[in-house]
């Protein structure tokens, strides 16, 4: 693909890089205990925690690096980290 003048690129190209492959632990969300506060989605550095139709939240495992900020932030402690079996 032709180089873009000025070493430039249009938005969204980073999505080609699926950082989910970095993960050792993955977050497991428990919608039963979710108060729908949205803090997990707000503080994810990847922006890959998304609201479901029910208003609860789930991670996009294509990008989740398993950092655990959502776990620490959840006021209900309804997210836990689990070692991922690959």
């Amino acid at each position, binding site marked *: 693909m032709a*180089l873009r*003048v*000025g*070493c*430039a*690129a*249009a*938005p969204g190209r980073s999505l080609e890089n699926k950082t989910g492959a970095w993960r050792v632990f993955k977050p497991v969300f428990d919608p039963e205990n979710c108060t729908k506060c949205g803090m997990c989605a707000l503080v994810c550095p990847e922006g890959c925690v998304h609201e479901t139709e029910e208003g609860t939240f789930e991670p996009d495992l294509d990008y989740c690096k398993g950092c655990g900020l959502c776990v620490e932030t959840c006021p209900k402690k309804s997210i836990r980290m689990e070692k991922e079996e690959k």
Partner: protein
Amino acid sequence: MLEFMEGSHAVAEIVKRCRPQVIAAYPITPQTHIVEDLAQMVANCEIDAEYITVESEFSALSACLGASAAGSRVYSATTSQGLALMFEVCFNAAGMRQPIVMTIANRSLGAPLSIWNDQQDSISLRDSGWLQFYAEDNQEAADLHMIAYKVCEDHDILLPAFVCFDGFILTHTYEPVALPSQEEVDAYLPAFSPYQRLDAADPLSLGMYATPEYYMEFRYEVDRAMQRAKQAFIKAGREFGERFGRDYSGLVEGYRLEDADTALVAMGSICGTAKDAIDEMREHGRKVGLLNIRVFRPFPAQEIADALKDVSTVAVLDKNISLGNGGAVGIEVKTALYGSGISVYDYIIALGGRDVRKRDIVAVVDLAEKGEGDIFYGLRTEVL
């Protein structure tokens, strides 16, 4: 109609007519009259531009880069220490393909500190990706700015340019200059139409970083744009000639070279002195000519080789020195003439504003014809 004016003023008047939207400049001798004139024009609402009184030359070029990337035509001017301070931004601006036009009022570089003319400053940035044009007189200094904007802003080129004219010798001397009208300039140089710009309606990330997988190809692209700039200059210079009666379709310009045995090669105002000296030598039957290099980057190697092919001796006048290896123009001319059999001699001359008179030009020709070259001309051995 010719008007008698200071070189700096001529440049300011032309820059005004080129309609920059953002001017960011820092004062430094001998460029000050240009930026002062422009400031007065802005204060009088004669130019519709933002004038940023930046806190350093580094910031001047950075601000120009930002404004250019945001889609405005920009202008700056500097010299010597100021240009040296811009070193990092120069490479950055060329790599980011911003069509910035900047006047260089050529001045020597410290240490030791000197405010007087030589061409060390712009020549020392010959690797940077900036086009470089050298004016012989104030008319050329003015004209080359219009041509520079046209060439730089061409979507096939998109490179910044230095328009160089000798500090004090040209900046502060009064010469007759023909200034075109605003309408004439507008017809030659239309409004800036950026290739791409920072725009929320069409976002892009500009100036990303390149891994080894991509970096070489980006640099190759800049070099190719540089090579294309030769034709772009010729085309813009020819059109300039058709509109204004002064032709700039040559990257180099020969003077009485047709039957010359010995040729001087030089850039800038020294060419004027050289031409007068050549006329006198010709009256005495000496077959001497001059090759004036107007465009130093991209380097017109083929044009130089073609122009000098029938000459037996070449004397390059270098108002600069690549310390440890002689004058830069000499080095590059020797490369262009490699394999030709022509004797090429390099003379480091007029550094730090030392005066050059016609008799000095004659003396250089004498030395070259005797086979004595690759020296500093006119050293005051008594102070060594």
